């Protein structure tokens, strides 16, 4: 990776005595300052990732797929709408007088209903809210409700719970829609959860256990989104897809929406099919209903094909580019340094021959096929990929360091150190290794772009870690996942610019270092 042809002279070595000298020479160059600025920028971006983005790189379905950045979208493009129906009131209570209904509004939002006694009852809870929605109709609408139904007595009453959402204006106008010949449906009324429809096949399970579940439904949805329970499902299938519930419900800007919770209760001690004691009672807790409209414009950099936040991915990608890039290239260079030092110091001995032979051998093992082989055998993981890279990329550094060390070991001060009885390890670490440090820094810095680009390339050919928070994964996903076809520039360009930018940053620093460690290039 690092292709430096380094020749040092004593003049340079004398000049670079300390780190401070080194830095002062470095910062005399404009390109080094520019490079450091770029690298610091990305380091800050990655380091502050937890604070500058509210999402994780793993979160999906944050907004609609391929949502534009919100600053680039016209103002009428839907944004995310997050809304809770909290206050419920008792709208209707029908049934036998023998049934007692106790209704209570919960403090944290939602409601609790306790039904006791024998007989039939039908209770409707309603939550009516004005939804401020200043955009054009969205593609879909997501509703989430949570109910708990507990039979207080041992034997149980039969019950059914139905959640529905309606557009009050349309329902009051008795508006209808003909979706096929002869099939007319009322407009603006959607059942998004029908308990009996859900549990009909697992009746016993629900009869014997308290019901406690969250139900999420995205409208329109051909199965859950039965517009009226009285219409045969089979005739509705396929037709329903033409109805856009999100559009129906938020037809006007600022619509009045109502959530209806319809609880049906039936307890007859004389019914042999469903046995029920006289003191039967049912407790139903309805938690706030969450309405979520996915925006087609979102955040700083929009979303990708899974509705994941691109800005979050970009920021976490910066973190892994800086951290992993530096860590991996350091590992490569340290390994090469160690081998090179030993081989060069023991020049001509068996150790040197063995190490040189290993260097030659590793040089012949092609990197990409090796990553594929290891990926197929051991699975696709970021750590395995980097381990292969480290194990195969060090010979370049080792060769250069070996050449250097072999010239340094016969220099006068090493001879002198040896003459006063210094050991091999002492000479290597105290006298020879410090001479190589500028070159080591240079090769670490120059290896980083290669490491980042390597990971990205591996991702692009399908052997990368599919869960890695890297720019490579973003580039690969945007290429294979329809980013190019959908012209999702907010998704394609950030990782590419980030990769090129950080590479240029490191290369600029490396270039300045090259002129320091390589005196022949200086004027």
């Amino acid at each position, binding site marked *: 990776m690092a292709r430096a042809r380094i020749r040092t002279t004593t003049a340079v070595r004398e000049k670079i005595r300390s780190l401070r000298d080194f830095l002062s020479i470095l910062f005399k160059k404009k390109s080094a300052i520019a490079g450091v600025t770029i690298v610091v920028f990305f380091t800050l971006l990655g380091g502050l990732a937890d604070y500058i983005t509210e999402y994780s790189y793993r979160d999906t379905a944050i907004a609609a797929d391929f949502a534009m950045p919100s600053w680039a979208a016209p103002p009428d493009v839907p944004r995310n709408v997050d809304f809770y129906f909290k206050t419920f009131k008792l709208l209707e209570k029908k049934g036998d007088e023998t049934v007692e209904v106790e209704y209570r509004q919960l403090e944290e939002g939602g409601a609790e209903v306790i039904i006791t006694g024998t007989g039939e009852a039908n209770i409707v809870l309603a939550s009516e809210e004005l939804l401020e929605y200043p955009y054009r109709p969205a593609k879909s609408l997501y509703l989430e409700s949570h109910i708990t139904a507990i039979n207080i007595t041992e034997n149980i009453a039969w019950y059914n719970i139905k959640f529905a959402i309606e557009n009050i204006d349309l329902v009051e106008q008795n508006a209808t829609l003909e979706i096929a010949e002869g099939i007319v449906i009322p407009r603006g009324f959607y059942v998004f959860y029908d308990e009996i429809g859900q549990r009909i096949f697992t009746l016993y399970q629900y009869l014997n256990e308290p019901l406690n579940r969250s139900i999420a439904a995205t409208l329109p949805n051909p199965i859950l989104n039965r517009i009226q329970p009285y219409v045969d499902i089979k005739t509705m299938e396929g037709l329903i897809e033409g109805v856009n519930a999100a559009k129906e419900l938020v037809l006007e800007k600022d619509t009045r929406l109502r959530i209806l919770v319809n609880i049906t209760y039936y307890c007859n001690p004389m019914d042999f099919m469903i046995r029920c004691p006289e003191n039967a009672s049912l407790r139903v807790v309805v938690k706030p209903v969450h309405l979520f409209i996915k925006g087609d414009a979102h955040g700083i950099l929009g979303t990708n094909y899974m509705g994941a936040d691109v800005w979050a991915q970009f920021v976490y990608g910066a973190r892994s580019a800086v951290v992993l890039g530096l860590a991996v290239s350091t590992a490569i260079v340290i390994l090469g340094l160690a081998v090179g030092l030993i081989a060069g110091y023991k020049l001509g001995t068996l150790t040197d021959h063995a190490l040189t032979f290993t260097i030659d*051998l590793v040089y*012949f093992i092609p990197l990409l096929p090796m990553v594929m*082989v290891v990926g*197929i055998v051991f699975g696709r993981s970021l750590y395995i990929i980097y381990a292969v890279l480290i194990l195969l990329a060090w010979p370049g550094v080792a060769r250069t360091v070996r050449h250097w060390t072999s010239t340094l070991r016969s220099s006068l001060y090493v001879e002198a150190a040896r003459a006063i009885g210094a050991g091999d390890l002492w000479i290597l670490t105290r006298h020879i290794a410090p001479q190589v440090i500028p070159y080591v820094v240079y090769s670490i810095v120059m290896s980083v772009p290669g490491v980042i680009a390597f990971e990205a390339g591996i991702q*692009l*050919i399908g052997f990368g870690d599919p869960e890695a928070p890297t720019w490579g994964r973003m*580039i690969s996903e945007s*290429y294979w996942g329809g980013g190019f076809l959908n012209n999702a520039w907010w998704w394609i360009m950030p990782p590419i610019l980030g*990769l090129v930018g950080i590479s240029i940053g490191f290369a600029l620093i490396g270039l300045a270092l090259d002129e320091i460690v390589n005196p022949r290039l200086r004027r």
Partner: protein
Amino acid sequence: MSISSHLAKLGVRMIVTYLAVIASYFIIIRVLPVLAAGGNPLADPVIAALRRTAEDPRFNLWIEEAMKRFGLDRPLFPDQFILYMKNTLSFNFGISIFTQRPVLSEIAVRLPYTLSLYTILTILPITIGYYLGIVSAQHRGKKLDAALTQGAIISYIVPSWLILLLIYYFLAYLPKRLWGIYIFPLPVKPPSIEVADIEAFKYLLWYMTPLIMAGTLAWTGPWIYFIRQIVISELGSDYSMVALAKGGAPRYVLRKHVVPNVRPPLMVQLAYAVPGIFGGALIFEIVGNWPGIAYFSYQAFLNWDFPVMTAFFAISATLIVVSLFVAELLLLLLDPKARAKG
């Protein structure tokens, strides 16, 4: 030491390295998976590949026969290893598991694609890099030099496939989206290498242009930088100082004294670059959907097509060994200093 004894020593070293390299490939693509499978024959990728092919009704009954042919029914050491070494060293790679055709003829089918693309992509960057490098060194410290150096650095660090992606985005996907035209074709239907049919040839050129553009942009930079560094260090050396001091025009000194000294390292670098032609650039070919040898080897790795993998590794290694030898030879022939050093 004389040249011949030096070469003989080098040759022996190369041959020993080559044998060790071929043996190490066996460890990587045969021993490693078997060890990872932990004695379960179904987890052995070669046997899995054989079984996948046997799902085809034409090859229903061939597993036993194929296992015998590849020696899979015998132990890894020494039987399989010896068979492998014998076949690989004699370039007798046998038949591809995946396509059921001889490996060498499969490679021969892909060779025109690889050669046509990478010959252009070797000659073009070197030629451009040679001239621009000398120009850059001549204008050292001026704006032209700074621009060329920065361009070279960017070209060196930005991978070729990334440039290709950008070219496809800006010159194929985006114009199609905005104006409904393709400036370059999408990498969907690779062309056939044909010169006789004028329409097919036009499509070939059209298809290849983005690849050549990307490759040239990505691979010229290192050459510019390389040549510039050599020329600068040669210009700073004593003999060019003397030539300049004697009153030689800088242009004359450059042409007569410096450039001849640039050629030996250039030739050596070229010798190093040539084996890369066979292996190609894998990611580049996958993005550009170019059916060369790299793409073929990629498919072979995906399907664990053992004979093709062996062939790919062995041919690459052979080419590298030969070119290293040629590079050393060139160095001896062209550079009297190296000859004197022995």
